Structure formats: structure tokens, C-alpha cells
């Protein structure tokens, strides 16, 4: 991919780690620093039906990234995500429920090189 700076790495990230309240892990800051792309999961306070429809869109995009060999991980959790992914034939990706920013950094650093970066990078 000439002239393209993508990392081929994507973190499905719980809203609380994108918009952290006091005391929550600032996942977005860690992921930015580590060069990961972020797919934000819908906020937990949305009505159930709206949250499910937003998760369906997330799942379709995850399927495309996974099929093309991008590394996809899950940071945090989101009710209904497993069902949305199952509907497009995808399992839950490798997951971390980080207790600290260093936990998340270590998890990301231990990931293997994405298949897509070997083929296209």
C-alpha cells in the first residue's frame, strides 16, 4: 500500500474506554499511542433496540476487516456484541478487560503481526 500509513490493527473498544469517566482506563489514548485503529462500540445507555442496530453495523465492518487479514481485538465488553458478530459468522475476537493502561499496552504489544500487513504492508 504505497503512501498509506495504516496499521492493519483494529480494537473494538467499549465506549467507557473511548469516553472514560474518572477512574476508567483511557483506552483511546493508549490505542492512539500504539497505532491501533478504534471501532467504538455503542454506548450502553442507548435503548436496547438502537444499540442492537448499531452493533449490526459494527459487525458487518468487523467481518470485512477480519476476512482481509486485519488483526481485530476487543477492549472491554458490550452486551449484544457476541450475538451481532455471530449473525455475520464471526466469533468474539481476543479480548482484554484492562485494569490499567499498562495491561492494555502489554496486551497490544504481544499481538502477532497482522496477516494483512505481511501481504499488503
Amino acid at each position, binding site marked *: *500500500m*504505497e*503512501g*498509506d*500509513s*495504516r*496499521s*492493519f*490493527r*483494529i480494537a473494538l473498544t467499549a465506549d467507557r474506554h*473511548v*469516553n472514560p469517566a474518572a477512574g476508567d482506563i483511557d483506552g*483511546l489514548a493508549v*490505542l*492512539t499511542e*500504539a*497505532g*491501533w*485503529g*478504534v*471501532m*467504538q462500540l*455503542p*454506548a450502553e445507555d*442507548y*435503548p436496547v433496540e*438502537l444499540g442492537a*442496530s*448499531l452493533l449490526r*453495523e*459494527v459487525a*458487518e*465492518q468487523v467481518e*470485512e*476487516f477480519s476476512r*482481509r487479514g*486485519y488483526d481485530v481485538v476487543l477492549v472491554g465488553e458490550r452486551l449484544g456484541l457476541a450475538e451481532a458478530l455471530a449473525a455475520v459468522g464471526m466469533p468474539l475476537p481476543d479480548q482484554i478487560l484492562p485494569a490499567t493502561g499498562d495491561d492494555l499496552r502489554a496486551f497490544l504489544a504481544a499481538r502477532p503481526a497482522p496477516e494483512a500487513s505481511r501481504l499488503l504492508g
Partner: protein
Amino acid sequence: MGVAFVAHCLLNQNSKVDGGAVCPGVYSPAVDLLRSRGWRIEQMPCPELAFTGLNRFWGVREQYDTLAYRRHCQRIAAGVAAAIAVRVDEGEDVVLIGVEGSPSMGVCITSSDPRRGGRPSWADGSGELSAGEGIFVEQLRWELEARGVRLPRIVGITRPLPDHDDAAERAALEAVLDA
């Protein structure tokens, strides 16, 4: 402060068309500005990614402007508009952040060339940038109107444009956030 609904690629440059990713993951100039001012971030889906995939060609509005793509954008826009309506009902100040030059996410500048099609052969800078909204932004505006929700303040990052200027982009974002 409020809620900023941002184009997918602001948080995930991996969604860009081949050759379009300007950084590994998160586009910090816009995201850092939003966070430093206390804006909550909510990411919109990338309409092109799920429709034409990661191996898509660089495209212009006319190539995407089909009934099937309109239906796809309408479906996504319905979800985004419903989410915006929730935040508006909560009394939140809402802004939208798009991507100038995009056939889907452009706010004031989209890509247009009615002659483009067939075997790709055109060079960069062949004049496809033109005034106008991208298709998803247009569908979202219609969806909000249908729900009686006023279109939030909206601005696009300019990083994909050939005359992009960091300071000008920041000033335009600040102007919309502060309005």
C-alpha cells in the same frame, strides 16, 4: 460539553481506501482537540467500507450514487439519526464531523466526475473535488429532517484535500465547536 458524532476514519484510518490512510490508527489532530475541550466522541459507521469493502478503488460521487448505495446509507443514517435524537433529547449540544473531499462523508466538498468509470487511468489532481455534500451526509440530513431533529453544526476535516493546512483545519473545527 457536548457530543461529537465523528466520521469513522477519524478513529480508524484502517477504513480508508488504499493510499488514503494518513496515520496508523487515530487521526489525532481532530480527536485530541475534541477531547481537550471535553467533547464526548461517538463514531459513525463508514458507509463505503461495508458496501464496497477494503479493496475498493478511489471513487467519486457518481460511482456511488446508486439506489442500492442510497438504501445502504439510509439504513446507516437511520441508526445514526436515532442516536443523535437521543442525545438531543438529553439536552446535549451535538456536532457532526465529516471528511472533506469524500464522496460519502464530504460536508462542503465532495468528489465528483461524471465521466469517471471503466478501467482506472486518471491521475491524481484530475479535478474531481467539487462543492457539495457526500451521499451519506445528505442521507443523514434527510433522516434528521424526517425525525424533526435540526441538523447539528457540521464541519469536515480537510486532511485529504491537496491544499490542507493544519492550522486552518483546527480553526474551522474550533469555530464549529465554539459556535
